[in-house]
Structure formats: structure tokens, C-alpha cells
């Protein structure tokens, strides 16, 4: 699963630490999600999307591998 968090975060002028604070998770979690090492739950994905002012389906994309 790919995501556009880094782009949206830059558009909102937010640092990883600020986003982590808003979503109430550790900064390492945001780093891991951005780099694709950790896939958030639906609730966390909605929270991140809400804090970045976008929709979850605009922020996260399924890849071909996810269907296998």
C-alpha cells in the first residue's frame, strides 16, 4: 500500500512531530507509515486523513501486490 502522507504533510506545512501530536501517536509511527514499513488501521488512516484535510482514499492507494 502506498501513501501520499509526505506530500499532503508538506502541503499543510506540518512536520512529522506535529502530525504525530495531532493524531496522538509516536513520531516513529508516522515515519514508519510514510516509509511504508507499517500499515495503519482504518481508524488511524481516517484520523491522519482528517488531520491533513484530505480523504483516506486520496491518501492511501492499494498496489497490485496487495491483491495477491
Amino acid at each position, binding site marked *: 500500500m502506498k501513501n501520499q502522507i509526505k506530500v499532503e504533510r508538506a502541503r499543510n506545512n506540518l512536520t*512529522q512531530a506535529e502530525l504525530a501530536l495531532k493524531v*496522538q*501517536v*509516536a513520531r*516513529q*509511527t508516522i*515515519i*514508519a507509515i*510514510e*516509509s511504508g*514499513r*507499517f500499515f*495503519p*488501521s482504518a*481508524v*488511524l488512516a481516517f*484520523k491522519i486523513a482528517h488531520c491533513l484535510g484530505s480523504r483516506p482514499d486520496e491518501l492511501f492507494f492499494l498496489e497490485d501486490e496487495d491483491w495477491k
Partner: protein
Amino acid sequence: MGKTYFFYSYWVKGLGVLLILIGLISFLNRYRKNGVFDFNELAIGLCFGLLCIFFSKEKTDDEMIEQLKFRALTKAVISTFLLTHLYNYIFLNWRLKRENDIILSISAYQYLAISLIIASCLFYFQKMQLPKHEE
């Protein structure tokens, strides 16, 4: 989300360290007085201590930490079971020559202590591996 599966507070980790130390002191005392290595006594201290350490919240607790802990616990339970089974199979079934004829099987306390040691090591290793700075 919002609720955590790890319900002990962060400070309980300190209590865990204290319980491990008590178990260790008790184990050494028993050896000093009777000359017996009572690994069950050590295992009991380790069990209570590591239960407090592993199942208490981290400074910042979120779903990624929970997932790391769950993965570590899964691997630890399976690997400890295999180790225990191998130990019991080799030492209790095979007719090995030994000085004392009594070899005890691994107790439940020892099994739990080994599992929790492996789980804690795996968890803190995985946590250390997480990137700390923006990539």
C-alpha cells in the same frame, strides 16, 4: 482504537525490575545457603518481573507498538515451545550418561520466563530498528 491492550501503567516497569532483582537475590541466597541452583525460584521472579515490564505501556503507546509486541510474543511462544520440546525430548527420553540420574523437565514458570525474555528482547530490538529521523 483509543483503548490499549497493555493495561499496566508505564511506572509498572520499575516494579518489574524490582521483582526480577528480588528473584535474583533469592536465587543467589538459596545457592549460598544450600548450594542448590533453584532455577524455579529464579524463573518465578523473572516471570512476575517480565510480565510487568512486557505488558505495561510504553512512553508513547500506539497501534504500531502493540503490533510489535504482538509479533514478538508470537515468535517467542513458538520458539520457546520448540526449545522446550527439544530439551525434554533429548534429556528425558534419550538414555544419556549423567552423574545425577535426575533431570527435571522445564517447568511452566521456566517456560513462561524464557518466552518473556525472548519476547522482550525481540520487541526492544525491533523498536531500536525503527527509523528515528525522517528518511
